[in-house]
Protein backbone atom coordinates (compact mmCIF):
# COMPACT_ATOMS: atom_id res chain seq x y z
CA UNK A 1 0.00 0.00 0.00
CA UNK A 2 1.12 3.55 -0.64
CA UNK A 3 3.11 4.54 2.48
CA UNK A 4 1.31 7.89 2.83
CA UNK A 5 -2.07 6.17 2.84
CA UNK A 6 -0.80 3.56 5.25
CA UNK A 7 0.43 6.22 7.65
CA UNK A 8 -2.86 8.14 7.41
CA UNK A 9 -4.82 4.96 8.17
CA UNK A 10 -2.61 4.01 11.10
CA UNK A 11 -2.88 7.56 12.40
CA UNK A 12 -6.65 7.22 12.08
CA UNK A 13 -6.53 4.03 14.14
CA UNK A 14 -4.59 5.80 16.86
CA UNK A 15 -6.85 8.85 16.73
CA UNK A 16 -10.00 6.78 17.08
CA UNK A 17 -8.83 4.85 20.13
CA UNK A 18 -7.44 7.97 21.78
CA UNK A 19 -10.68 9.85 21.15
CA UNK A 20 -12.68 7.11 22.86
CA UNK A 21 -10.20 7.02 25.73
CA UNK A 22 -10.45 10.78 26.23
CA UNK A 23 -14.22 11.04 26.00
CA UNK A 24 -16.77 11.48 28.73
CA UNK A 25 -19.61 12.18 26.30
CA UNK A 26 -21.25 9.32 24.48
CA UNK A 27 -21.22 11.07 21.10
CA UNK A 28 -17.47 11.52 21.23
CA UNK A 29 -16.99 7.90 22.29
CA UNK A 30 -19.12 6.77 19.34
CA UNK A 31 -17.11 9.02 17.05
CA UNK A 32 -13.86 7.36 18.15
CA UNK A 33 -15.30 3.90 17.55
CA UNK A 34 -16.44 4.86 14.05
CA UNK A 35 -13.02 6.32 13.20
CA UNK A 36 -11.46 3.01 14.22
CA UNK A 37 -13.86 1.04 12.03
CA UNK A 38 -13.29 3.32 9.02
CA UNK A 39 -9.53 3.31 9.30
CA UNK A 40 -9.09 -0.44 9.46
CA UNK A 41 -11.34 -1.31 6.50
CA UNK A 42 -8.76 -0.54 3.78
CA UNK A 43 -6.12 -2.32 5.83
CA UNK A 44 -8.30 -5.41 5.77
CA UNK A 45 -8.99 -5.20 2.05
CA UNK A 46 -5.48 -4.16 1.04
CA UNK A 47 -4.71 -7.42 -0.77
CA UNK A 48 -7.88 -7.02 -2.80
CA UNK A 49 -8.63 -10.71 -3.16
CA UNK A 50 -12.27 -11.70 -2.70
CA UNK A 51 -11.77 -13.36 0.69
CA UNK A 52 -10.20 -10.21 2.13
CA UNK A 53 -12.94 -8.01 0.69
CA UNK A 54 -15.53 -10.39 2.16
CA UNK A 55 -13.88 -10.13 5.56
CA UNK A 56 -13.79 -6.33 5.31
CA UNK A 57 -17.47 -6.23 4.34
CA UNK A 58 -18.53 -8.49 7.20
CA UNK A 59 -16.48 -6.48 9.67
CA UNK A 60 -17.95 -3.21 8.44
CA UNK A 61 -21.53 -4.49 8.66
CA UNK A 62 -21.20 -5.86 12.19
CA UNK A 63 -19.29 -2.87 13.54
CA UNK A 64 -21.70 -0.41 11.92
CA UNK A 65 -24.66 -2.26 13.45
CA UNK A 66 -22.98 -2.21 16.86
CA UNK A 67 -22.17 1.51 16.54
CA UNK A 68 -25.73 2.27 15.48
CA UNK A 69 -27.05 0.40 18.51
CA UNK A 70 -24.61 2.32 20.71
CA UNK A 71 -25.81 5.63 19.29
CA UNK A 72 -29.43 4.62 19.72
CA UNK A 73 -28.82 3.57 23.32
CA UNK A 74 -26.98 6.82 24.17
CA UNK A 75 -29.80 8.85 22.64
CA UNK A 76 -32.31 6.83 24.65
CA UNK A 77 -30.22 7.51 27.75
CA UNK A 78 -30.22 11.23 26.92
CA UNK A 79 -33.98 11.15 26.59
CA UNK A 80 -34.56 9.20 29.77
CA UNK A 81 -31.98 10.81 32.05
CA UNK A 82 -31.26 14.14 30.35
CA UNK A 83 -27.50 13.83 30.17
CA UNK A 84 -24.82 12.27 28.01
CA UNK A 85 -22.13 11.46 30.56
CA UNK A 86 -20.61 8.00 30.23
CA UNK A 87 -19.99 7.53 33.91
CA UNK A 88 -23.34 8.79 35.13
CA UNK A 89 -25.67 6.25 33.61
CA UNK A 90 -28.47 5.16 35.86
CA UNK A 91 -31.29 3.77 33.73
CA UNK A 92 -31.02 0.00 33.14
CA UNK A 93 -32.37 -0.04 29.57
CA UNK A 94 -29.63 2.02 27.90
CA UNK A 95 -26.99 0.32 30.05
CA UNK A 96 -28.08 -3.10 28.83
CA UNK A 97 -28.26 -1.98 25.20
CA UNK A 98 -24.82 -0.39 25.33
CA UNK A 99 -23.31 -3.47 26.98
CA UNK A 100 -24.71 -5.66 24.22
CA UNK A 101 -23.57 -3.23 21.52
CA UNK A 102 -20.05 -3.22 22.94
CA UNK A 103 -20.17 -7.03 23.21
CA UNK A 104 -20.94 -7.16 19.48
CA UNK A 105 -18.10 -4.73 18.78
CA UNK A 106 -15.60 -6.82 20.68
CA UNK A 107 -16.77 -10.30 19.75
CA UNK A 108 -18.26 -11.78 22.92
CA UNK A 109 -20.54 -14.77 22.67
CA UNK A 110 -23.40 -14.98 21.70
CA UNK A 111 -22.47 -12.06 19.42
CA UNK A 112 -19.23 -13.68 18.27
CA UNK A 113 -20.13 -15.27 14.93
CA UNK A 114 -18.40 -12.65 12.82
CA UNK A 115 -14.99 -12.94 14.47
CA UNK A 116 -13.66 -16.29 13.14
CA UNK A 117 -14.76 -15.57 9.58
CA UNK A 118 -13.37 -12.04 9.56
CA UNK A 119 -10.08 -13.07 11.10
CA UNK A 120 -9.74 -15.94 8.61
CA UNK A 121 -9.88 -13.56 5.66
CA UNK A 122 -7.07 -11.33 6.91
CA UNK A 123 -3.33 -11.68 6.83
CA UNK A 124 -1.67 -12.22 10.19
CA UNK A 125 -0.51 -8.62 10.77
CA UNK A 126 -3.94 -7.10 10.18
CA UNK A 127 -5.45 -9.91 12.22
CA UNK A 128 -3.13 -8.93 15.05
CA UNK A 129 -4.31 -5.30 14.88
CA UNK A 130 -7.92 -6.51 14.88
CA UNK A 131 -7.36 -8.81 17.87
CA UNK A 132 -5.49 -6.34 20.01
CA UNK A 133 -5.76 -2.66 19.16
CA UNK A 134 -9.40 -2.72 18.08
CA UNK A 135 -10.44 -4.19 21.41
CA UNK A 136 -9.00 -1.32 23.43
CA UNK A 137 -11.60 1.35 22.70
CA UNK A 138 -14.76 -0.72 23.36
CA UNK A 139 -13.07 -2.23 26.40
CA UNK A 140 -12.43 1.21 27.89
CA UNK A 141 -16.12 1.99 27.51
CA UNK A 142 -17.13 -1.32 29.07
CA UNK A 143 -14.87 -0.60 32.05
CA UNK A 144 -16.67 2.68 32.68
CA UNK A 145 -20.18 1.29 32.41
CA UNK A 146 -22.30 0.94 35.49
CA UNK A 147 -23.62 -2.56 36.02
CA UNK A 148 -27.37 -2.81 35.97
CA UNK A 149 -27.64 -6.49 35.23
CA UNK A 150 -25.00 -8.65 36.95
CA UNK A 151 -26.49 -11.84 35.58
CA UNK A 152 -26.13 -10.69 31.98
CA UNK A 153 -22.42 -9.98 32.35
CA UNK A 154 -21.79 -13.36 33.97
CA UNK A 155 -23.80 -15.07 31.24
CA UNK A 156 -21.85 -13.23 28.53
CA UNK A 157 -18.62 -14.30 30.19
CA UNK A 158 -19.47 -17.95 30.67
CA UNK A 159 -21.00 -18.28 27.18
CA UNK A 160 -17.87 -16.73 25.71
CA UNK A 161 -15.48 -19.05 27.50
CA UNK A 162 -17.64 -22.02 26.55
CA UNK A 163 -18.01 -21.02 22.89
CA UNK A 164 -14.37 -20.02 22.66
CA UNK A 165 -13.28 -23.42 23.93
CA UNK A 166 -15.85 -25.54 22.16
CA UNK A 167 -15.73 -23.74 18.82
CA UNK A 168 -11.97 -23.89 18.59
CA UNK A 169 -11.87 -27.65 19.03
CA UNK A 170 -12.56 -28.57 15.41
CA UNK A 171 -10.37 -25.96 13.75
CA UNK A 172 -7.27 -26.56 11.70
CA UNK A 173 -6.85 -23.00 10.50
CA UNK A 174 -4.63 -21.04 12.86
CA UNK A 175 -6.44 -17.74 12.46
CA UNK A 176 -9.77 -19.28 13.42
CA UNK A 177 -8.11 -20.91 16.43
CA UNK A 178 -6.80 -17.50 17.47
CA UNK A 179 -10.27 -16.02 16.95
CA UNK A 180 -11.86 -18.54 19.31
CA UNK A 181 -9.00 -17.96 21.72
CA UNK A 182 -9.85 -14.27 21.63
CA UNK A 183 -13.51 -15.00 22.37
CA UNK A 184 -12.57 -17.17 25.36
CA UNK A 185 -10.17 -14.62 26.81
CA UNK A 186 -12.69 -11.82 26.41
CA UNK A 187 -15.15 -14.03 28.26
CA UNK A 188 -12.80 -14.21 31.22
CA UNK A 189 -12.35 -10.43 31.12
CA UNK A 190 -16.02 -9.63 31.18
CA UNK A 191 -16.68 -12.23 33.86
CA UNK A 192 -14.76 -10.26 36.46
CA UNK A 193 -15.44 -6.75 35.13
CA UNK A 194 -18.24 -5.91 37.51
CA UNK A 195 -16.31 -7.12 40.55
CA UNK A 196 -12.81 -5.89 39.86
CA UNK A 197 -12.18 -3.76 36.75
CA UNK A 198 -8.44 -3.74 37.42
CA UNK A 199 -8.34 -7.54 37.15
CA UNK A 200 -10.19 -7.22 33.87
CA UNK A 201 -7.57 -4.79 32.62
CA UNK A 202 -4.81 -7.14 33.79
CA UNK A 203 -6.42 -9.97 31.86
CA UNK A 204 -6.61 -7.75 28.77
CA UNK A 205 -2.96 -6.72 28.98
CA UNK A 206 -1.69 -10.27 29.49
CA UNK A 207 -3.92 -11.43 26.64
CA UNK A 208 -2.38 -8.75 24.40
CA UNK A 209 1.15 -9.91 25.20
CA UNK A 210 0.35 -13.59 24.71
CA UNK A 211 -1.56 -13.21 21.50
CA UNK A 212 1.06 -10.84 20.12
CA UNK A 213 3.66 -13.59 20.58
CA UNK A 214 1.39 -16.21 19.02
CA UNK A 215 0.59 -14.11 15.97
CA UNK A 216 4.26 -13.24 15.45
CA UNK A 217 5.37 -16.86 15.71
CA UNK A 218 2.83 -17.86 13.07
CA UNK A 219 3.87 -14.93 10.92
CA UNK A 220 7.55 -15.90 11.07
CA UNK A 221 6.64 -19.43 10.08
CA UNK A 222 4.35 -18.07 7.34
CA UNK A 223 1.95 -20.70 8.63
CA UNK A 224 -1.82 -20.43 8.42
CA UNK A 225 -2.80 -23.98 9.28
CA UNK A 226 -1.58 -26.68 11.64
CA UNK A 227 0.09 -28.71 8.92
CA UNK A 228 2.37 -25.82 7.98
CA UNK A 229 3.53 -25.64 11.58
CA UNK A 230 4.81 -29.17 11.40
CA UNK A 231 7.89 -28.16 9.41
CA UNK A 232 8.94 -25.28 11.63
CA UNK A 233 11.33 -27.41 13.72
CA UNK A 234 13.75 -27.58 10.83
CA UNK A 235 13.55 -23.90 9.96
CA UNK A 236 13.68 -22.26 13.38
CA UNK A 237 14.41 -24.75 16.17
CA UNK A 238 14.60 -22.29 19.05
CA UNK A 239 11.28 -20.65 18.26
CA UNK A 240 9.77 -24.08 17.82
CA UNK A 241 10.95 -25.10 21.27
CA UNK A 242 9.58 -21.94 22.92
CA UNK A 243 6.22 -21.86 21.18
CA UNK A 244 4.63 -24.55 23.36
CA UNK A 245 5.29 -22.29 26.32
CA UNK A 246 3.56 -19.42 24.55
CA UNK A 247 0.59 -21.61 23.65
CA UNK A 248 0.31 -23.11 27.11
CA UNK A 249 0.48 -19.61 28.55
CA UNK A 250 -2.52 -18.77 26.35
CA UNK A 251 -4.16 -21.83 27.81
CA UNK A 252 -3.59 -20.57 31.32
CA UNK A 253 -1.19 -23.12 32.68
CA UNK A 254 0.97 -22.33 35.70
CA UNK A 255 3.81 -21.32 36.10
CA UNK A 256 3.38 -19.25 32.92
CA UNK A 257 1.99 -15.73 32.68
CA UNK A 258 -1.39 -16.80 31.37
CA UNK A 259 -2.14 -18.40 34.71
CA UNK A 260 -2.03 -15.04 36.50
CA UNK A 261 -5.32 -13.50 35.30
CA UNK A 262 -7.22 -16.78 35.55
CA UNK A 263 -5.97 -17.39 39.08
CA UNK A 264 -6.85 -13.92 40.30
CA UNK A 265 -10.23 -13.98 38.54
CA UNK A 266 -11.14 -17.33 40.12
CA UNK A 267 -10.08 -15.95 43.49
CA UNK A 268 -12.23 -12.85 43.01
CA UNK A 269 -15.24 -14.92 41.95
CA UNK A 270 -14.83 -17.12 45.02
CA UNK A 271 -14.66 -14.03 47.22
CA UNK A 272 -17.89 -12.79 45.66
CA UNK A 273 -19.60 -16.06 46.63
CA UNK A 274 -19.89 -17.38 43.08
CA UNK A 275 -18.25 -20.81 43.36
CA UNK A 276 -20.37 -22.38 40.61
CA UNK A 277 -19.44 -19.62 38.16
CA UNK A 278 -15.78 -20.05 39.00
CA UNK A 279 -15.97 -23.81 38.54
CA UNK A 280 -17.74 -23.49 35.19
CA UNK A 281 -15.21 -20.95 33.97
CA UNK A 282 -12.29 -23.16 34.98
CA UNK A 283 -13.85 -26.21 33.33
CA UNK A 284 -14.49 -24.37 30.06
CA UNK A 285 -10.87 -23.24 30.04
CA UNK A 286 -9.97 -26.90 29.75
CA UNK A 287 -11.57 -27.00 26.30
CA UNK A 288 -9.30 -24.20 25.06
CA UNK A 289 -6.31 -25.90 26.66
CA UNK A 290 -6.99 -28.95 24.51
CA UNK A 291 -6.58 -27.18 21.20
CA UNK A 292 -3.54 -25.24 22.41
CA UNK A 293 -2.03 -28.57 23.38
CA UNK A 294 -2.88 -29.94 19.94
CA UNK A 295 -0.92 -27.06 18.39
CA UNK A 296 2.07 -27.81 20.66
CA UNK A 297 1.85 -31.49 19.72
CA UNK A 298 1.85 -30.80 15.99
CA UNK A 299 4.57 -28.21 16.15
CA UNK A 300 7.08 -29.31 18.74
CA UNK A 301 6.26 -32.51 20.53
CA UNK A 302 6.27 -34.59 17.37
CA UNK A 303 8.45 -34.50 14.27
CA UNK A 304 6.30 -35.19 11.26
CA UNK A 305 7.71 -37.30 8.42
CA UNK A 306 9.64 -35.20 5.96
CA UNK A 307 11.97 -35.92 3.09
CA UNK A 308 15.69 -35.61 3.77
CA UNK A 309 16.01 -32.28 2.01
CA UNK A 310 13.37 -30.78 4.23
CA UNK A 311 15.10 -31.74 7.45
CA UNK A 312 18.08 -29.41 7.06
CA UNK A 313 17.07 -26.32 5.11
CA UNK A 314 19.22 -23.21 4.80
CA UNK A 315 18.55 -21.02 7.82
CA UNK A 316 18.62 -17.64 6.10
CA UNK A 317 18.19 -14.43 8.15
CA UNK A 318 14.59 -13.35 8.17
CA UNK A 319 13.62 -9.85 7.07
CA UNK A 320 11.01 -9.74 9.74
CA UNK A 321 11.80 -7.93 12.98
CA UNK A 322 12.25 -10.45 15.74
CA UNK A 323 12.90 -8.09 18.64
CA UNK A 324 9.18 -7.59 19.39
CA UNK A 325 8.72 -11.35 19.37
CA UNK A 326 11.65 -11.81 21.73
CA UNK A 327 10.29 -9.24 24.16
CA UNK A 328 6.75 -10.50 24.21
CA UNK A 329 7.80 -14.16 24.38
CA UNK A 330 9.87 -13.40 27.47
CA UNK A 331 6.95 -11.59 29.02
CA UNK A 332 4.54 -14.38 28.05
CA UNK A 333 6.59 -17.00 29.82
CA UNK A 334 8.14 -15.29 32.79
CA UNK A 335 5.76 -12.68 34.15
CA UNK A 336 4.04 -14.76 36.83
CA UNK A 337 6.52 -14.01 39.66
CA UNK A 338 5.90 -10.30 39.05
CA UNK A 339 2.22 -10.77 39.91
CA UNK A 340 2.11 -8.20 42.77
CA UNK A 341 3.68 -5.54 40.56
CA UNK A 342 1.35 -6.39 37.70
CA UNK A 343 -1.77 -6.11 39.84
CA UNK A 344 -0.72 -2.81 41.37
CA UNK A 345 0.03 -1.35 37.96
CA UNK A 346 -3.55 -1.83 36.81
CA UNK A 347 -5.26 0.83 38.87
CA UNK A 348 -8.79 1.60 37.76
Amino acid at each position, binding site marked *: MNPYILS*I*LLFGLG*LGTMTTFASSHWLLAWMGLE*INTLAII*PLMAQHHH*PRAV*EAATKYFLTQAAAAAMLLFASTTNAWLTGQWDIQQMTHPLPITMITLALALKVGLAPLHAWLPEVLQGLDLSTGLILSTWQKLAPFSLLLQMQTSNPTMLILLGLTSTLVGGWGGLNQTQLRKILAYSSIAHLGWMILVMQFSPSLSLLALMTYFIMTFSAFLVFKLNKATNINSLASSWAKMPVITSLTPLILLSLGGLPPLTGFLPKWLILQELAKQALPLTATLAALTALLSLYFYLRLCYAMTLTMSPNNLVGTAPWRLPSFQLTLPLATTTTMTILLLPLAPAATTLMTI
Partner: protein
Amino acid sequence: MVYIFFLFLFCLVLGLAAVASNPSPYFAALGLVMVAGAGCGVLVGHGGSFLSLVLFLIYLGGMLVVFAYSAALAAEPYPEGLGSWPVLGVMLTYALGAVMASVFFWGGWYEGSWTSADEFVEFSLFRGDIAGVALMYSMGGGILIMGAWVLLLTLFVVLELTRGLSRGALRAV
Protein backbone atom coordinates in the same frame (compact mmCIF):
# COMPACT_ATOMS: atom_id res chain seq x y z
CA MET B 1 -50.00 24.79 12.32
CA VAL B 2 -51.10 21.54 13.89
CA TYR B 3 -52.69 20.56 10.60
CA ILE B 4 -49.39 21.15 8.75
CA PHE B 5 -47.62 18.95 11.29
CA PHE B 6 -50.19 16.26 10.73
CA LEU B 7 -49.67 16.45 6.96
CA PHE B 8 -45.88 16.26 7.36
CA LEU B 9 -46.04 13.22 9.61
CA PHE B 10 -48.54 11.55 7.29
CA CYS B 11 -46.18 12.07 4.35
CA LEU B 12 -43.34 10.74 6.51
CA VAL B 13 -45.09 7.44 7.18
CA LEU B 14 -46.22 7.10 3.57
CA GLY B 15 -42.71 7.79 2.31
CA LEU B 16 -41.28 5.23 4.73
CA ALA B 17 -43.79 2.66 3.48
CA ALA B 18 -42.77 3.50 -0.09
CA VAL B 19 -39.08 2.97 0.72
CA ALA B 20 -39.66 -0.27 2.60
CA SER B 21 -41.83 -1.76 -0.16
CA ASN B 22 -38.75 -2.84 -2.12
CA PRO B 23 -38.94 -0.81 -5.32
CA SER B 24 -35.95 -0.13 -7.55
CA PRO B 25 -33.34 2.15 -5.96
CA TYR B 26 -34.40 5.15 -8.05
CA PHE B 27 -37.91 5.11 -6.66
CA ALA B 28 -36.70 4.31 -3.17
CA ALA B 29 -34.60 7.46 -3.38
CA LEU B 30 -37.74 9.41 -4.26
CA GLY B 31 -39.41 7.97 -1.18
CA LEU B 32 -36.37 9.04 0.87
CA VAL B 33 -36.69 12.57 -0.49
CA MET B 34 -40.28 12.67 0.74
CA VAL B 35 -39.30 11.26 4.14
CA ALA B 36 -36.44 13.74 4.59
CA GLY B 37 -38.57 16.65 3.46
CA ALA B 38 -41.38 15.77 5.85
CA GLY B 39 -38.97 15.20 8.71
CA CYS B 40 -37.30 18.53 8.08
CA GLY B 41 -40.70 20.23 8.12
CA VAL B 42 -41.45 18.74 11.54
CA LEU B 43 -38.01 19.84 12.73
CA VAL B 44 -38.58 23.43 11.60
CA GLY B 45 -41.87 23.56 13.42
CA HIS B 46 -40.14 22.51 16.64
CA GLY B 47 -37.50 25.20 16.42
CA GLY B 48 -34.70 23.33 14.69
CA SER B 49 -34.40 25.43 11.56
CA PHE B 50 -30.60 25.25 11.36
CA LEU B 51 -30.61 21.48 11.76
CA SER B 52 -33.32 21.18 9.15
CA LEU B 53 -31.38 23.29 6.65
CA VAL B 54 -28.20 21.30 7.27
CA LEU B 55 -30.15 18.05 6.83
CA PHE B 56 -31.57 19.19 3.50
CA LEU B 57 -28.20 20.33 2.22
CA ILE B 58 -26.09 17.41 3.32
CA TYR B 59 -28.49 14.48 3.31
CA LEU B 60 -30.61 15.31 0.29
CA GLY B 61 -28.20 17.51 -1.60
CA GLY B 62 -25.04 15.54 -0.91
CA MET B 63 -25.55 11.94 0.06
CA LEU B 64 -28.75 11.25 -1.84
CA VAL B 65 -27.32 12.79 -5.02
CA VAL B 66 -24.23 10.56 -4.74
CA PHE B 67 -26.49 7.60 -4.13
CA ALA B 68 -28.57 8.45 -7.18
CA TYR B 69 -25.47 8.61 -9.36
CA SER B 70 -24.19 5.29 -8.00
CA ALA B 71 -27.61 3.70 -8.54
CA ALA B 72 -27.61 5.03 -12.09
CA LEU B 73 -24.31 3.21 -12.67
CA ALA B 74 -25.96 -0.09 -11.83
CA ALA B 75 -28.54 0.39 -14.56
CA GLU B 76 -31.64 -1.74 -14.28
CA PRO B 77 -33.36 -2.52 -17.56
CA TYR B 78 -36.83 -2.82 -16.00
CA PRO B 79 -37.05 -0.70 -12.86
CA GLU B 80 -40.07 -1.36 -10.64
CA GLY B 81 -41.73 1.56 -8.94
CA LEU B 82 -45.12 2.07 -7.39
CA GLY B 83 -46.66 1.33 -10.77
CA SER B 84 -46.04 -2.39 -10.56
CA TRP B 85 -48.30 -4.56 -8.45
CA PRO B 86 -45.73 -6.34 -6.24
CA VAL B 87 -44.34 -3.03 -4.98
CA LEU B 88 -47.71 -1.32 -4.64
CA GLY B 89 -49.16 -4.30 -2.80
CA VAL B 90 -46.34 -4.36 -0.24
CA MET B 91 -46.57 -0.61 0.24
CA LEU B 92 -50.32 -0.72 0.86
CA THR B 93 -49.76 -3.58 3.32
CA TYR B 94 -47.23 -1.50 5.25
CA ALA B 95 -49.51 1.54 5.23
CA LEU B 96 -52.36 -0.63 6.47
CA GLY B 97 -50.11 -2.02 9.18
CA ALA B 98 -49.23 1.52 10.28
CA VAL B 99 -52.94 2.44 10.41
CA MET B 100 -53.75 -0.65 12.44
CA ALA B 101 -50.87 0.05 14.84
CA SER B 102 -52.09 3.60 15.36
CA VAL B 103 -55.66 2.39 15.95
CA PHE B 104 -54.40 -0.16 18.46
CA PHE B 105 -52.12 2.16 20.38
CA TRP B 106 -54.13 5.37 20.20
CA GLY B 107 -55.33 6.44 23.63
CA GLY B 108 -58.32 8.55 24.45
CA TRP B 109 -59.38 11.78 22.76
CA TYR B 110 -56.77 13.70 24.74
CA GLU B 111 -53.91 11.73 23.17
CA GLY B 112 -55.03 12.41 19.65
CA SER B 113 -55.13 16.18 19.90
CA TRP B 114 -52.25 18.62 19.86
CA THR B 115 -52.18 22.04 21.38
CA SER B 116 -49.80 24.58 19.96
CA ALA B 117 -47.53 25.82 22.75
CA ASP B 118 -45.52 28.32 20.76
CA GLU B 119 -47.76 31.15 19.59
CA PHE B 120 -45.05 33.42 18.17
CA VAL B 121 -44.05 30.88 15.54
CA GLU B 122 -43.86 33.10 12.48
CA PHE B 123 -42.62 36.12 14.36
CA SER B 124 -39.81 34.78 16.52
CA LEU B 125 -36.26 35.56 15.53
CA PHE B 126 -34.41 33.11 17.75
CA ARG B 127 -35.39 29.53 17.12
CA GLY B 128 -34.78 26.70 19.53
CA ASP B 129 -31.45 25.53 18.28
CA ILE B 130 -29.65 28.87 17.97
CA ALA B 131 -27.87 28.58 21.31
CA GLY B 132 -26.81 25.02 20.55
CA VAL B 133 -25.41 25.96 17.15
CA ALA B 134 -23.41 28.83 18.64
CA LEU B 135 -22.05 26.49 21.30
CA MET B 136 -21.12 23.91 18.67
CA TYR B 137 -19.03 26.42 16.75
CA SER B 138 -17.42 28.06 19.77
CA MET B 139 -16.66 25.46 22.42
CA GLY B 140 -17.08 22.50 20.14
CA GLY B 141 -14.77 23.86 17.46
CA GLY B 142 -12.11 21.25 18.06
CA ILE B 143 -14.56 18.43 17.49
CA LEU B 144 -15.66 20.06 14.22
CA ILE B 145 -12.04 20.14 13.07
CA MET B 146 -11.70 16.50 14.01
CA GLY B 147 -14.92 15.83 12.12
CA ALA B 148 -13.46 17.47 9.04
CA TRP B 149 -10.34 15.32 9.40
CA VAL B 150 -12.49 12.21 9.70
CA LEU B 151 -14.30 13.16 6.49
CA LEU B 152 -10.93 13.42 4.75
CA LEU B 153 -10.02 10.03 6.22
CA THR B 154 -13.26 8.61 4.83
CA LEU B 155 -12.35 9.96 1.41
CA PHE B 156 -8.98 8.22 1.55
CA VAL B 157 -10.64 5.02 2.78
CA VAL B 158 -13.12 4.99 -0.10
CA LEU B 159 -10.46 5.80 -2.68
CA GLU B 160 -8.19 3.08 -1.31
CA LEU B 161 -11.01 0.53 -1.38
CA THR B 162 -11.97 1.32 -4.98
CA ARG B 163 -8.40 1.73 -6.22
CA GLY B 164 -7.42 0.16 -9.46
CA LEU B 165 -9.29 -1.42 -12.30
CA SER B 166 -11.33 -4.53 -11.56
CA ARG B 167 -9.23 -5.61 -8.59
CA GLY B 168 -11.07 -7.27 -5.75
CA ALA B 169 -14.82 -7.40 -5.84
CA LEU B 170 -15.61 -3.97 -7.29
CA ARG B 171 -16.29 -3.52 -10.95
CA ALA B 172 -13.82 -2.03 -13.39
CA VAL B 173 -14.76 1.62 -13.26
